[in-house]
């Protein structure tokens, strides 16, 4: 009887990563002290600051693993992990560059033309150009292969018509590109994954309209992006025409394995500790113990995925499993904090913590939706277990 289906190897941070962590902590402490940022819940999907992103770019903390040739810094995946987890734990406004740094840049590095790589990647690594995700559509959510946005071949490229939705940050200052999954050949019901391609769409091109969508908290973080006869040059194709499905699967793997899946609102716990320490009863101790045990275990698993990636493995199912568990924990974190915090915080109208809690509660429904719903992730897990 196999004792363990999924393996999450131990990871030890090398000296360079440990030194980097101190550097990042000092930077964040100085920024927070000087008003360079105010901590936010769900900071990687709500905290837009082009200025903050440029500062990170100047420090070499964007595009960290990319080749120097394209403005990257050729640092290890673990060093990048350190920077991202420190930013999240501090609630820093990292939304502007998040998508470019996490997936679009790497996706371009792997599959884009030299022309695009030379033009876009150095600006992305500098925090001057940002990206949005172009997967979902009004009628396409979990069933991603059903996208209808069409790219028709024209001289020198394609003419794109259709719409993408839930594209976080597409409206933001400096958000120039969207890697879009489009149909370059008509849908065939038997071969649904055929005829799809990934195109880099310039969001400033004629025919592109970005319309903000208010979320339940009244904030505009995501968008609907309309394409009307948008010309996309041939050089903006990723990989080969018609191979978009395998490309998008690879992009999703980049999207699912990071620490943002359990640290989105860690800052709320950190701030709540200040209040809870004043008069801790057994219930408070118990809740803190439960939450820290969950976080430590999730971090172990999340880092284990980084370890597997470093070993050259493709831990897609492990990433799905951790994301499913981690995003459910994000909801639990806020719910458990609520029940031990005093009314002065829950009903409070001033101060950082009451704001963080409200932000976190209103943002948390998206945790178990974005990047693949938990139901889709569970489907991936059971496929690996041989039940599908």
């Amino acid at each position, binding site marked *: 009887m196999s004792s363990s289906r999924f393996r999450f190897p131990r990871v030890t941070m090398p000296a360079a990563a440990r030194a980097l962590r101190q550097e990042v902590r000092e930077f964040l402490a100085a920024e927070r002290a000087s008003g360079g940022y105010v901590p936010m819940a769900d900071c990687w999907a709500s905290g837009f600051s082009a200025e903050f992103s440029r500062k990170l770019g100047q420090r070499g903390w964007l595009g960290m693993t990319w080749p120097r040739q394209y403005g990257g810094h050729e640092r290890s995946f673990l060093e990048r992990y350190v920077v991202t987890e420190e930013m999240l734990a501090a609630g820093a406004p990292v939304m502007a560059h998040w998508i470019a740094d996490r997936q679009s840049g790497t996706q371009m590095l792997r599959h884009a033309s030299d022309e695009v790589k030379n033009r876009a990647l150095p600006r992305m690594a500098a925090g001057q150009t940002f990206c949005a995700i172009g997967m979902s559509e009004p009628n396409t959510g979990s069933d991603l292969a059903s996208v209808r946005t069409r790219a028709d071949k024209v001289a020198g490229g394609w003419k794109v018509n259709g719409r993408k939705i839930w594209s976080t940050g597409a409206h933001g200052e400096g958000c120039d590109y969207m890697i879009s999954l489009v149909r370059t050949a008509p849908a065939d019901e038997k071969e649904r994954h055929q005829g799809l391609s990934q195109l880099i769409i310039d969001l400033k091109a004629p025919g592109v309209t970005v319309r903000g969508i208010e979320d339940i908290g009244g904030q505009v973080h995501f968008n609907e992006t309309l394409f009307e006869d948008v010309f996309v040059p041939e050089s903006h194709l990723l990989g080969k025409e018609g191979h978009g499905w395998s490309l998008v699967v690879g992009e999703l793997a980049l999207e699912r394995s990071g620490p943002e899946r359990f640290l989105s609102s860690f800052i709320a716990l950190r701030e709540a500790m200040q209040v809870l320490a004043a008069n801790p009863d057994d219930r408070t101790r118990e809740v803190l*113990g439960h939450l820290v045990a969950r976080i430590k275990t999730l971090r172990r698993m999340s880092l284990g995925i980084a370890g597997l990636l470093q070993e050259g493995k493709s831990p897609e199912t492990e990433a799905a499993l951790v994301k499913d568990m981690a995003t459910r924990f994000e909801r639990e974190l806020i719910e458990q904090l609520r029940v031990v915090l005093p009314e002065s915080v829950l009903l409070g109208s001033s101060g950082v913590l009451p704001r963080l809690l409200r932000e976190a509660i209103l943002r948390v429904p998206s945790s178990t939706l974005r990047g693949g719903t938990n139901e889709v992730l569970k489907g991936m897990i059971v496929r690996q277990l*041989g039940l599908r």
Partner: protein
Amino acid sequence: MSETDSHTLDTVILDTATRLFADLSTSETINAAEKGEWPGALWQAIEASGLHLTWVPEECGGAGAGMLDGFAVLKAAGAAALPVPLAETLLAGWLLAQAGLEVPEGPLTIARGEHRIDNNGAVTGVALAVPHARSARQIVALARDGARLLVVAVPVSACALTLDRNLAGEPWDTVDFNGAVATLSTAAPVGLDADSIDAMGALVRVNQAAGALGTALELAIQYAGEREQFGRPIGKFQAIQHMIADLAGEAAAVNAAADAAAEAVAVTGAVDADAWVEIATAKVRLGQAASVGPAIAHQVHGAMGFTYEHRLHHFTRRAWAWRDEFGNETVWARRLGDAVLGWGADQLWPRITAVTDK
């Protein structure tokens, strides 16, 4: 990357254990043990292989294998619902070795808490829920002699036992030391106390339970693939699939937490402050998983898995028993929460990352 310290895993030990358990820890043997029959052949095979001395250094008469080997063997033991006190013998051997004592022959067990040495130099006190006491030759415990805390080994034959069983049907006896004379006795090393026994005991149970949950998962996968209703295997229904995905996640989480804590203990071989935090984490995580996991495994198996005849209960009942032993998740969460409050808000995150930054 993924560097381990000097304690790398010896796959030969784990392979030996896995094969031996698969051959001899059969459903019939486990059921017979619950009815009171001592699985002599199984224990003899374990002694012959030396698995029971995994945590005992060579100078104390042991195998001198690494701590991680022992924890891997314990996972395999849990995965096989091993009905003999291998875990307890390892734990007792660890405690004796910590005190530099030579490990005696035969199955051993351990009593929690601090007992007393009376004026005649004999051990007194009552220990509750001592696992497998009736099957052990000696009980290892801590006993206070005035200002001195001693590690002692007491022959079971000199104690008064009140027999009971835990909800997995494992022997779980009340032991009255009753003025028994210790066969071995020496001062406990600095830093080792009743809390250390609880911590190491908790980690032993987490590893066994990780194995048991792993087997419950395998059985659920297998059953869902075979059992047909409405014209297809029940594993084709999304409702069942999603439950099994959750069970897989819980099993994986306990495994990961168990590994993290085992690695922390392996650094020094003792329960230091860093290892204690990992153990607390693991026991709390087990408590969460052992309430969700077995429930799913039973739901998937339907009424069939609720019968004594089906072997699922060997694993679910053990997970339920082990989550409570050596402190349940409430006890450990409060302790961990206390430690977290001691760190303070500013040190919360640095303490979480310290694990990987040594």
